[in-house]
């Protein structure tokens, strides 16, 4: 591994389907409002490349990682849990531990739906920054803000309440924006959503 660590890039490792989308969107919004760059495996559309290779390449470049484990639950159709999120968290932690010296600067936040739930399925991660978002997007916004401010030590960042207020206003405008190009807000791709949030932040804050 030899890629340069990008100091503004935040790798987002979250479930992004169905009921998890509000938390996913809130995390992306918060990262962008704070002046960082949200990276996610969904931004790659090169089907010829193995999915894991894309994720590895992206993790290698990101200084920060936000990992939401709330999607780890038994899938009724298979009676098995989905384990992509813990796998990607493991890759991030492994890259930090075993990568080139610059990779030791990596920092990661772990979010879950309930406090201490992780102890039932991945207790070895104790000692990391683990917070609960309680299934509430605005709480996720505040947790992401406080963690990014503390770990990056940047000054002058907006407060959690202010970002949450921006997010409420963005959500109010999103249906009107999507209606102008005949799309449902829930069907925006990651790249479209990132572009929409970035443009809104430049004009709507």
């Amino acid at each position, binding site marked *: 591994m030899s890629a340069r660590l990008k100091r503004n890039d935040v790798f987002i490792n979250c479930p992004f389907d169905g009921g998890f989308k509000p938390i996913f969107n809130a995390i992306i919004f918060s990262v962008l409002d704070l002046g960082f760059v949200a990276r996610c495996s969904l931004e790659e559309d090169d089907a010829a490349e193995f999915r894991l290779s894309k994720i590895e390449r992206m993790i290698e470049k990101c200084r920060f990682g936000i990992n939401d484990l709330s999607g780890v639950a038994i899938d009724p159709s298979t009676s098995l849990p989905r384990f992509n999120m813990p796998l990607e968290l493991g890759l991030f932690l492994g890259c930090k531990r075993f990568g080139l010296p610059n990779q030791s600067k990596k920092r990661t936040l772990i979010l879950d739906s309930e406090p201490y739930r992780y102890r039932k399925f991945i207790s070895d991660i104790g000692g990391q920054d683990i917070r609960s978002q309680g299934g509430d997007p605005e709480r996720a916004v505040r947790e992401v803000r406080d963690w990014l401010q503390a770990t990056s030590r940047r000054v002058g960042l907006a407060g959690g309440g202010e970002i949450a207020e921006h997010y409420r206003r963005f959500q109010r405008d999103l249906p*009107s924006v999507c209606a102008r190009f005949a799309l449902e807000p829930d069907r925006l791709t990651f790249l479209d959503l990132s*572009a929409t949030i970035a443009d809104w932040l430049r*004009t709507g804050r």
Partner: protein
Amino acid sequence: MASKTVHVFCSQGTWQVKREGASGKAYGTKREAVAAARKTMNSMRAGQFVVHGKDGLIKEHGTHNMTPVQDPPKKSSRASEIARAVSQVVLDRLQSNSTP
């Protein structure tokens, strides 16, 4: 409370400078309007200004004590379409609040 964004846009042949939730002012030229918007932004504790082009795209943007937004690493294929839509929705709301 007025928003932190100072908008510059053309309406009915004049250049308007306006913040959401505050009264605005009209200027004869774009240059005067942009200078006034910068001055307003710099008088705020934290703020930003944005110049909306006649084509609906953002032509100029600046911040004062406010974190600048980074561009996504990969551009959406619909980036221009999205920028126009966002700009128009925000301007519609701005203009429906009150006239400058």
